[in-house]
């Protein structure tokens, strides 16, 4: 039973910086939870607190139901994969894998069995006699994972393990991680700044910013029902367009064009529209007016970068940008005027001052079935 729980954790550094504020999270047994956010958001701090490499300023941490806040890293039955792998350079791969077990006085035969088992699973069996310096980046990464697996811990902690790999390798290892988790089912807490990794690997994603949890949910939930502008703008690639809107006559309008019914009591609204949800209207049909800036052909589709508004509708301040994901055959010329539309359920509304999501068009937020 390896449930992991953060209860009301705060962490403040001696220089006054508040790294984590009131952090609450429970990862169920066997769940793969990803902490994602920009640098400085507190995700690595949260991981280190779970590992025991740092103490929280307040709050409790539980692993497998028992409080471990006072325990050192060696007493928590967790294993960690470091961003830079942290392999012991003066030991062979075998000794690296065996180190943790030797510290726990595991009998020799058992160590051998586990090391060989894990190195077979990870495909590093031929490397056991080599030193880390003789291995490639991908091999070192596997040894780092092996060292963690061999311990058969209650929880698996991973600190941006893929960020030092080149793009192609990253994709491969990501898939292997997914397979490994399906096979072994160990509770895992994974930290990354890459939202693609988060979306593909997580059972649940925790989006963090500036030490605060922004939203916790499945990848689908976080994508379809972002709780605030930060999450909306962070998840999804290319990023969601967030544009200012005006409320007149009970309608929310973007560059003058109505997109949704105005929710009660809010007059300052930000509208979110994902590039892949926007459709270029055929000539004649009305829609949000934009002027094309340039486009990026990507083979399967085209990204059209445009500027909100056209000459006839005066725009106050800097014109906002909109990116549209269009079919591969769309080739707009710079300066061309387009009209864009989106289905009502793809129009997101956020309060302009707090950033919180607003229910739109009377449709309540639905949890994925």
């Amino acid at each position, binding site marked *: 039973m390896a449930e992991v729980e953060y209860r009301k954790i705060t962490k403040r550094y001696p220089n006054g910086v508040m790294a984590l504020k009131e952090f609450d999270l429970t990862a169920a047994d066997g769940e793969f939870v990803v902490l994602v956010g920009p640098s400085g958001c507190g995700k690595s701090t949260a991981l280190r607190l779970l590992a025991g490499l740092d103490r929280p300023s307040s709050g409790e941490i539980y692993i497998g139901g028992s409080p471990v806040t006072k325990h050192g890293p060696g007493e928590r039955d967790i294993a960690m994969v470091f961003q830079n792998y942290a392999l012991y350079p003066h030991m062979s791969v075998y000794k690296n894998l065996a180190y943790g077990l030797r510290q726990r006085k595991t009998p020799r035969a058992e160590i051998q069995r586990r090391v060989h088992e894990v190195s077979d699973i990870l495909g590093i069996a031929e490397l056991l006699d080599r030193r880390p310096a003789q291995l490639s980046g991908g091999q070192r990464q596997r040894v780092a994972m092996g060292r963690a697996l061999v311990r058969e811990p209650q929880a698996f902690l991973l600190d941006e393990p893929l960020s030092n790999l080149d793009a192609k390798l990253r994709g491969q290892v990501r898939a292997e991680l997914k397979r490994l988790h399906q096979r072994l089912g160990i509770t895992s807490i994974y930290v990354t700044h890459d939202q693609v990794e988060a979306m593909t690997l997580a059972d649940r994603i925790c989006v963090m910013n500036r030490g*605060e949890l922004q939203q*916790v*949910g499945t990848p689908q*939930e976080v994508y379809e029902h972002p709780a*605030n502008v930060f999450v909306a703008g962070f998840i999804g690639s290319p990023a969601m367009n967030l544009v200012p809107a005006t409320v007149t006559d009970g309608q929310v309008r973007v560059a003058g064009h109505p997109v949704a019914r105005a929710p009660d009591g809010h007059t300052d609204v930000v509208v979110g529209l994902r590039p892949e949800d926007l459709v270029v209207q055929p000539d004649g049909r009305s829609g949000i007016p934009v002027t094309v800036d340039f486009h990026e052909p990507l083979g399967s589709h085209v990204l059209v970068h445009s500027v909100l508004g056209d000459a006839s509708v005066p725009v106050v301040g800097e014109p906002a940008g909109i990116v549209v994901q269009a079919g591969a055959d769309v080739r707009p010329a710079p300066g061309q005027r387009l009209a864009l539309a989106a289905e009502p359920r793809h129009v997101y509304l956020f309060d302009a001052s707090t950033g*919180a999501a607003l229910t739109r068009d009377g449709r309540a937020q639905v949890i994925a079935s």
Partner: protein
Amino acid sequence: MTTSASPTIPGRTAEPAPAEQTHEHRRFRLRRPSPWHLVLIPISFILLFPFYMMVVTSLQTEAQTRRFPPLLTPPTPQWSNYATALHAAPFVRFMVNSAVVALIIVVGNLVLCSIAGYAFARLRFAGRGLVFGLLMATLMVPFQVTMIPEFLIVKWLGVHVWDQLGIDHLGALVLPTLATAFGIFFLRQFFLTVPVELEEAARMDGTSRLGVLFKIVLPLSLPALSTVAAITFLDAWNSFLWPLIVINTESHMTLPLGLTTFQGSHDTHWELLMAGNVFSLVPMLLVFLIAQRYFVRSVAATGLKG
């Protein structure tokens, strides 16, 4: 099938309530100092104790120094001890000599070793490898092997070339270490790391080799030059055996040597000896404190290169 633990919907970016703020302030001030101070302070104390005793003794009267157990503070600080010591032996003269010698050696090394180091790093000429190897070999040989012939050479130079180069003169102190294999080695290593493209660009603009060295490479090499300067200065200032061999006249002595003769003539006047000691320690200590960075870097560099 995901368990939806209550998705927290914060997104509040509002400031914490005033009560929370003062609470945070209070926690801030109660931070405990690290317990490591309890270890570091005794260690520092033991290391610095000799300095402390030096200063304390230098400010005592002769009678006070002859107390047992010795006094750990000067009851009536005798600043006059310093005046007495400075009169009893020409300390200022010693210091000036040391300073002159050290400065000449440092300048000499910086100039000669830069030029030579640059040549070994960037220029190609017949016999380059052999000469470099021979120079490096001299680093392996202990001073005692070469000191006798060096003495004889310096003596010969003084008689047959220019008396300032000879025994008991400035030249004898300065000449043998005016360029060191260490300096050449260290600077060459550094010059090798300067991007060749910079030099090539300058050469294409018509700069001479020497010009490239002085206008391009040296300005980029200030840390390495400072390090060589620091180490060379330390060695020159604290050098004892060689001055002992070549200098006889008191007025030509450098500080370490001068202090030794002072010791010889005042050997039970501990208060004066310590005054002289402190006096001769202060300049090097100041230089060290100011240029600490470079000393540390140079030592660490030699150590880590193995």
